[in-house]
């Protein structure tokens, strides 16, 4: 049994090799998951927003409003101030998108799209773009650049500090991508490894494999619950950090 091959099969993205006029279309298991999550969110939230009169409809409408209030009052307004109100749809979408991508991975035969560095990098780039837009929108180009240097910094320190601050912003965006990717990937690797324990031990002796079944499944259940928690936690962290970084360029030193 090639353990690495099995793990790779479950973790890595699979390109279905669709080409259109010589141009490769990136139709992969992860992108399909992304589309599916997007469609679910789009149709689900659109249906909720129509404000159905049924009991379920009213419940979901209230739930969605409470969710928006949570994002607005818990992340956007405290970190970005009133200026952040216009970006509320972005943050509401970001949280749900990251969350649903992670939750989708808990469904059998569905991949966790956010365990792909390209996907998390794309989300981090979108957040980076938002940070850049906020800086330019509220301070202008020169003002945005000035924001990298804290007020009261001695003149001779500026050439040293400015590149460091720019680098710091880039690293922040990169860290957004790597944190989400690493957390999602590690959780799934642990889940697969726990399952593999049964088969590896079973190859040694069938009775040992049967004995390892219950402990391995208990650990698997525990890790799945942990994954559920991590899904919410990572969505929260990604959205919160984006709002903090965007807020830091709106309200500079």
């Amino acid at each position, binding site marked *: 049994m090639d353990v*690495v091959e099995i*793990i*790779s099969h479950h*973790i*890595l*993205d699979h*390109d279905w090799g669709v080409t259109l006029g010589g141009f*490769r*279309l*990136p139709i*992969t298991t*992860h*992108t399909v998951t*992304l*589309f599916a999550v*997007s469609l679910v*969110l*789009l149709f689900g*939230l*659109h249906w*909720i*927003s*129509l*404000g159905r009169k049924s009991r379920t409809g009213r419940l979901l*409408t209230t739930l*969605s*409003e409470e969710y*928006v*209030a949570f994002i607005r009052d818990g992340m956007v307004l405290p970190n970005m101030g009133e200026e952040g109100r216009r970006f*509320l*749809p*972005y943050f*509401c*979408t*970001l949280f749900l*998108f990251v969350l649903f991508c992670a939750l989708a991975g808990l469904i059998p035969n569905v991949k966790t*799209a956010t365990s*792909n*560095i*390209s*996907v998390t*990098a*794309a*989300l981090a*780039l*979108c957040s980076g773009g938002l940070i850049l837009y906020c800086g330019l929108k509220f301070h202008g180009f020169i003002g945005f650049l000035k924001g990298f240097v804290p007020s009261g910094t001695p003149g001779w320190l500026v050439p040293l500090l400015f590149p460091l601050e720019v680098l710091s912003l880039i690293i922040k965006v990169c860290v957004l991508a790597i944190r989400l990717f690493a957390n999602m*990937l590690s959780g799934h690797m642990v889940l697969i490894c726990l399952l593999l324990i049964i088969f590896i031990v079973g190859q040694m002796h069938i009775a040992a494999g049967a004995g390892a079944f219950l402990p391995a499944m208990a650990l698997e259940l525990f890790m799945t619950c942990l994954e559920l928690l991590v899904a919410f936690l990572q969505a929260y962290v990604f959205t919160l950090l984006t709002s903090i970084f965007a807020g830091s360029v709106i309200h500079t030193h």
Partner: protein
Amino acid sequence: MENLLKPDYGVLVLTICNFLLLVYLLKKFAWNRIIGGLEQREKQIADDKQQAQDARAAAETLKRELDEKLAQISDEASKKMAEAVKLGETQKEQILAAAKEQSERLLEQAKTQIEAEKNKALADVRGEIARTAVLAASKVVQQQMSEESAQHVVDRVLQEIKAK
């Protein structure tokens, strides 16, 4: 496994397009309505709260006014009660004084009347006694005394009676 950290630019671009399109579509078809509903609900709650606060303030003002009026009425009632008691006391004293005066007057009148009646009765008695005495004396001494002597005797008898 080495492909794990190797970015797929096609997936990257597709994810960016997908996500930004999703943000746009959700904003257009869902978030605007949900956020609008939320803000409307919050506004309604704030309005209701404001109305409740206004109503409470109005009720408190009304209560304060009523309390002041009640206190004023209570003061007036106390004053009027005191005045009534005072008036009652005055009237009581007046009535008592008048009754006393009247009783004294009646007593005086009764005394005067009694005195007059007494004097009259005494005079009557005196006259009767005198007549009786004269009659008796005249009968006793009819044959021995003159009229002057008889009168003298009568007077002496009367003085003795008076002295008694």
